[in-house]
């Protein structure tokens, strides 16, 4: 693969991604959304983030992500639910997954 092809891919991907970002932000004011739709918008973000978090927690390239990662995420979620600080949640999740892998758990 030539560098020119890679540069083209990066350029178009960057422009496209930026336009997707800007489009949502700009459209929100441009189009006058009816009040019920406006109220639901934060829940759209909740839906997308929940879908993203659960799929990245449990799958890798369309397949089951093993045991260590979901176990780490589970530990993190339980700690978050027990109102532990965010840093503790993130570190405990990573440490659990890393520790399990060290023990040979996939």
């Amino acid at each position, binding site marked *: 693969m030539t560098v020119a092809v890679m540069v083209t891919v990066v350029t178009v*991907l960057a422009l496209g991604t930026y336009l997707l*970002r800007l489009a949502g932000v700009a459209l929100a004011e441009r189009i006058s959304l009816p009040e019920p739709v406006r109220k639901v918008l934060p829940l759209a973000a909740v*839906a997308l983030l*929940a879908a993203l978090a659960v799929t*990245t927690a449990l799958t890798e390239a369309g397949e089951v992500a093993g045991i260590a990662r979901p176990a780490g995420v589970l530990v993190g979620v339980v700690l978050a639910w027990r109102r532990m600080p965010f840093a503790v949640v993130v570190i405990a*999740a*990573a440490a659990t997954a890393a520790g399990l892998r060290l023990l040979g758990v996939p």
Partner: protein
Amino acid sequence: MGALYRTIDRGLLRDIGALIIAAAFIGVSFGAIAVASGVPGWLALVMSMVVFAGGSQFMAVGLLAAGSPVGALLGGLLLNARHLPFGLAVSDVVGHRWPTRLLGSHLLIDESVAFALSQTDPVQRRAAYWLTGVGLFVTWNLGTAIGVVVGGAVADPAALGLDAAFPAGLLALLLPSLQDPAARGVAAVAAVVALLTTPLLPAGVPVLLGLLGLATLALRRRNQEEKR
């Protein structure tokens, strides 16, 4: 910015700090993997700056290495399509004047949206969005640079368990929103739909299908009307 800084809750600042440090390590692995895949180091750096969306960057580098530039482009864009509905949802925190909007749009990432959502006070919401966006931009690019320079010498992100840190962080940020039963229904259906369609559809699409979780709101309303 000074006024903004003073109004920020200490705990929020610490939480954002934890997340952007984790992002730095993932940035290191991106830089190292990009170079190992045959992407020039300078291009990996530019990519982290101008694309600034980790998932799509890893995917694009992988597909470029596999000799599929068209796949890298389309796959990356599909994966980033969620940013459009994200923008609709958090446009109020990004800003209303064009200069802030143009800059703020580039900082629209999963983490900045999640942090904004986790706050209820409008000032904290705005602060959370911008601080997460700017902070993560800095650490992500710094990490990429380190990865490009140090290359394969750095540890594998899986060995550090960082792949578990990201979803755990997102879920922790979602928890406050989930106290609302309507949001719980939306999130549960979104997660199930995305999970079930992941083996069947290209990456990015299952997450977008998560929006079907919003259908639970219509069902909920109908049930309430029937009860009346």
